[in-house]
C-alpha cells in the first residue's frame, strides 16, 4: 500500500474546459502542503478535483482507501440570518467543541450571524481541522483574518496529527511559508 494519503499524477482538471494541470501532487501523513499561485491559476479547481467536484480531463488522483476528506471552501455558506452557533458547526463535522483552544471556544457560543467575517472563518477552519478527516483541504483560509488570528491559524496548522495531511491554498506566500511543511507553486 502507498505511504501517501493522496497521489495525483499528470492531473488536468477543470469544468467545461481544463483549468489547471498537468501537475503531480503527493500528500504524505503529517504533511501540510501549501499551494501557491496567482489568481486564475486554478488553485481552487485543484482542490475541487481532489474533492471530486471538478472534472478530471487527464491523469489520475488516487486516495488511500477509506480516506476521510474535509473541504473548507473559499466562500463559506453563511446566510444573512444564521441562528446556529459555532458549536453546532463543530459538531456537524465531528469536532468536539469542548476541546477547542480558548480563543476559538469563546467564538463557539454566539450565533454565527453575530461573528465577524474573520471570527466565522476561524470557527469554520478550526472545526474542519478538529474533525475526524484524515485529509483536510483548505481554500484561502486566511481570507478575512487579521494578523493575530492568522498567527493562531498558523499554529493550528502546525499541530496537524501524524496520520493526517492538509492541503492549504493561499495567495499569501508568507503565510504558506510559515504554516506549511512545503509549498507547491502552480502557474
Amino acid at each position, binding site marked *: 500500500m502507498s505511504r501517501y494519503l493522496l497521489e495525483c499524477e499528470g492531473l488536468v482538471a477543470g469544468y467545461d474546459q481544463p483549468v489547471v494541470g498537468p501537475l503531480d501532487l503527493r500528500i504524505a501523513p503529517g504533511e501540510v502542503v501549501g499551494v501557491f499561485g496567482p489568481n486564475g491559476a486554478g488553485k481552487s479547481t485543484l482542490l475541487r478535483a481532489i474533492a*471530486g467536484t471538478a472534472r478530471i480531463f487527464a491523469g489520475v488522483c488516487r486516495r488511500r482507501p477509506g480516506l476521510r476528506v474535509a*473541504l473548507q*471552501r473559499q466562500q*463559506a455558506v453563511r*446566510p444573512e440570518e444564521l*441562528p*446556529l*452557533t459555532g458549536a453546532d458547526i463543530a459538531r456537524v463535522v465531528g469536532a468536539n467543541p469542548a476541546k477547542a483552544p480558548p480563543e476559538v471556544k469563546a467564538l463557539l457560543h*454566539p*450565533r454565527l450571524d453575530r461573528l465577524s467575517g474573520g471570527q466565522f472563518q476561524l470557527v469554520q477552519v478550526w472545526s474542519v481541522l478538529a474533525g475526524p478527516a484524515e485529509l483536510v483541504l483548505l481554500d484561502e483560509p486566511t481570507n478575512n483574518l487579521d494578523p493575530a488570528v492568522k498567527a493562531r491559524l498558523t499554529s493550528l496548522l502546525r499541530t496537524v496529527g501524524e496520520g493526517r495531511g492538509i492541503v492549504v491554498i493561499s495567495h499569501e506566500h508568507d503565510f504558506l511559508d510559515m504554516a506549511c511543511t512545503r509549498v507547491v507553486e502552480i502557474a
Partner: protein
Amino acid sequence: MALDTLVDPLFRVPFFTGLVLAPLAALLGTWLRLREEWLAAMAYAQVAAAGGVLGAVLNLALVPAALAIAAVAAVVKGLAARAGNDHFALFMLLGWGLTLLVAANSAHGEMVGRALLDGQLYFTGPGHLWAGATLLALTLALLPWLAPRLLLSRFFPEHFAANGLPAWRHKLVFDLLVVMVVALTTTAVGVMATFALVFIPPWIAFALARGWRPVMVWSALLALGAYLIAFAGAILLDQPFGPVLTLVLASLAVLRLARRARNAT
C-alpha cells in the same frame, strides 16, 4: 355554552390531530428555512390541494390522493436536483390553477376545494390523527439520522462528493417527509394555515433563538401555542379554524419585529 363546546368529545379527535400536526409542520419548516426552501410549504400545500380536488372528482379518498400528488411533486423536485425556490413557485402556480379549474367543473370538487382552501380541521377523523401521529413518530425516528446529513449538506456541500457518499438518500427522505406532513396538514387545516405553520414559527425562531436545537424547540412551541389559541378562539368565537390560525400565527410576527428592533438599538 361556548366553553362546553370546547370540551365537546366531538372535537377531541380534531383537537389532537392539530396538536400533532402543528408543531410537526413547524419543525420541518425550520429545516426548510435553513435550506432556503421555505416556499416548499406553499407549493406542496397547493399541490396537495389540487390532488385532493382531483381525487374528489375521481371518487378517490381525499388524503391519499393529496399525498400521492404531492409526493410526485417531491420526486420531480428531487430529480431536478436544484436548490432554491424557483421550482416551488412553479408547483404553487400549477397547484393553484389546477385546484380552481377542477373545482369549477365539478360540484363535489368545488366543495372539497373550498374545504381545502379554508381548512376543515373539525371534520377530520381518527384516520387523520393516526396518520399525523405516524408521521410525527417517523420524523422523530428519522431526525437523528437526517439532521447531521442535512446540516453537512447545507454548510459543507462538497462533503458527500468528497467522501464518495450518496447525498440523494437523505435529500429524498427529507423531501418525502416534508411532502407527507404538508399534504396531511393541508387536508386538515387548509392551504394558507399550513403555509403559515411552516413559515411563521421558524421565521420567528430564527430571530429569537441561539443554537440549532433551540431554534427547533422554539419553532415547535410557537406553533403549538398558536394552535391552542386558534383552536379555542375559533370555537369560542364560532369562526372558521384555518383563517383564525393563520391570523394568530401572523400576529406572532411582533415577536420577531420586537427582537430585531432590540438588536438594532
